[in-house]
């Protein structure tokens, strides 16, 4: 079962929810797809880390074969190539690895080489397998890393928690593609509501079953509840604002491992979600 945790924006408690759900589930897999700012490992502090690099293909020029025809320069929509004084220069960090230049070169002057853009770390934290995708700074796109991470878990039978990147860009779409269920985390502020609407639109686009977790609930704010009522979205859980949780979280501790109250809260959230998914499977088959 794959559960994706997302929010329209960062800082709403996406990592808090996915880390704690994975922790209470035991025998589970936590996958950090927030490759630009992967923070899940700061909580799990996994051990026995295996590290593998992720590479993309970028062109390399054989100057002796280059005829200076500029076909590649004219073709490249990303402007990753320049032809200067009969010398071809490739800009690795602009290249999107489409392979067009190599395909078009009339003299086979271009070939491909691997360029490392990040890495995947796999480790263990108690009974949770922790997989983190990490994009190197300065790289344009983390999508190849997310694809690689999701490939790794494609055949897994265990419960998987996917911590998605913030926002609603294609990188998030990639992360939720294979999910059985999406958990949307929202804060009860006008900003939070605005961001939730974006995440809601995104899961709608992919027809993914979904529910909402309200983080840092306030007694006098019903913004998120009202929106969920209106759109018939299930509210899965409400996490109250609590300085103890705040302190645990900001110190990089996993609340469900440190506090009985939060162990209970996240276990019950997990049960609710699992029931939802089973219900979905029944109604759709």
């Amino acid at each position, binding site marked *: 079962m794959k559960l994706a945790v997302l929010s329209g924006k960062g800082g709403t408690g996406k990592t808090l929810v996915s880390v704690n759900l994975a922790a209470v589930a035991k025998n589970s897999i936590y996958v950090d797809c927030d490759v630009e700012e992967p923070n899940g490992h700061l909580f799990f502090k996994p051990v026995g880390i295996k590290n593998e690099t992720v590479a993309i293909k970028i062109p390399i020029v054989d100057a002796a074969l280059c005829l200076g025809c500029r076909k590649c*320069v004219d073709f*490249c929509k*990303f*402007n*990753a*190539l*320049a*032809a*200067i*004084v009969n*010398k071809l*220069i490739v*800009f690795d*960090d*602009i290249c*999107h690895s489409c392979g067009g230049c190599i395909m078009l070169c009339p003299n086979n002057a271009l070939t491909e080489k691997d360029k490392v853009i990040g890495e995947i770390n796999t480790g263990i934290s108690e009974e949770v397998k922790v997989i983190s995708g990490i994009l190197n700074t*300065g*790289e*344009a*796109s*983390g*999508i190849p890393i997310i694809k690689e991470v999701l490939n790794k878990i494609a055949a897994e039978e265990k419960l998987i928690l996917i911590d998605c990147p913030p926002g609603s*860009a*294609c*990188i998030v779409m990639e992360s939720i593609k294979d999910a059985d269920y999406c958990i949307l985390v929202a804060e009860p502020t006008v900003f939070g509501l605005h961001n939730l609407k974006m995440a809601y639109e995104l899961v709608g686009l992919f027809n993914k079953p979904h529910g909402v977790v309200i983080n840092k609930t306030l007694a006098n704010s019903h913004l998120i509840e009202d929106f969920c009522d209106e759109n018939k979205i299930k509210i899965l859980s409400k996490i109250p604002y609590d300085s103890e949780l705040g302190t645990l979280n900001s110190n990089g501790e996993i609340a469900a491992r440190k506090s009985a109250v939060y162990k209970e809260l996240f276990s019950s959230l997990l049960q609710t979600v699992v029931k939802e998914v089973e219900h979905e499977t029944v109604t759709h088959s």
Partner: protein
Amino acid sequence: MKIAIPADEKILSSDVCMSFGRAPYFYIYETMTKMGDFIENEAASSPGGAGVKAAQIVVDQHADILITPRCGENAAEVFKATPLQIYKSKNGSIADNLDAYLNDKLSQLENFHAGFHGVAGN
């Protein structure tokens, strides 16, 4: 000798454009004939890699000197492969900066900023 300057508008009294890659025009001045021309910068509307393309355009114009307030690392990489020299513009119009250069009052640009890597797309 040819001098290139990024321009906001197609007039000599126009300010030097703050961005090299995304300048709407380049002013190209030939010191031998004392004549100048404005050319369109096709790179300005590129979603990504504007600096590289703009540099290619300037090099293709056979410019020897570029006067600009700033220049990205990628464009600088293109220029490194050529004899072109880059000078830092001062406040004022294109005409002012051209004068300043011809009277030896500009210094070479030394700092190159990181680019807008892979801007559009993802």
